[in-house]
């Protein structure tokens, strides 16, 4: 069974630029999550989707971050404009249901200069 796919794996941008990350969850998984992991810390939930609806976006900085999951499968996370403190690994995870085990992708390492 294929795992969670993410792209790109690495991205370097300058502050105030915009960037987008893509995630393809495990086939059949209804729930999709985006996490931010700053170096030396554990992952922090940004947003949770159930199919194509948002369940929890309470920790998403909505002035600069946006995410969508239009057809209930793939998802995109966007940052516009980026700040230096956005440098982190952005992890996507999926689970069969809202309370199921979460399986993580390899992440996208973002460096903002």
């Amino acid at each position, binding site marked *: 069974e294929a795992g969670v796919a993410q792209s790109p794996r690495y991205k370097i941008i300058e502050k105030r630029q915009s960037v987008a990350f893509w995630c393809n969850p495990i086939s059949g998984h209804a729930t999709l999550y985006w996490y931010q992991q700053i170096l030396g810390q*554990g992952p922090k*939930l940004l947003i949770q989707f159930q199919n194509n609806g948002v369940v*929890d976006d309470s920790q998403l900085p909505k002035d600069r971050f946006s995410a969508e999951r239009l057809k209930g499968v793939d998802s995109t996370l966007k940052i516009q404009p980026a700040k230096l403190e956005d440098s982190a690994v952005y992890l996507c*995870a999926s689970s069969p249901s809202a309370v199921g085990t*979460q399986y*993580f992708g390899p*992440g996208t390492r973002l460096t903002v200069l």
Partner: protein
Amino acid sequence: EDQVTQSPEALRLQEGESSSLNCSYTVSGLRGLFWYRQDPGKGPEFLFTLYSAGEEKEKERLKATLTKKESFLHITAPKPEDSATYLCAPYTDKLIFGTGTRLQVFP
């Protein structure tokens, strides 16, 4: 406020030297606790889920246990390939990750 503390932050072990990692937590509405392993440059890999105090789960050289306030990950006779960061995450309505324990096992 929900809090998760993992100790030690880093642990160096000789191959075969058993030890334990600690995860203490203060959360509201605990529904379970997850352990993940994370290798450098990779996403977290699921290890165990524990749902109630007294529960234990084992996988190869790892055993996870749960009390009302803590969880322990016991590593018996570790090998160099066990080197990784181990993350615990109590589950309420979301996973709340600790900062992890970075384990290094030397031959």
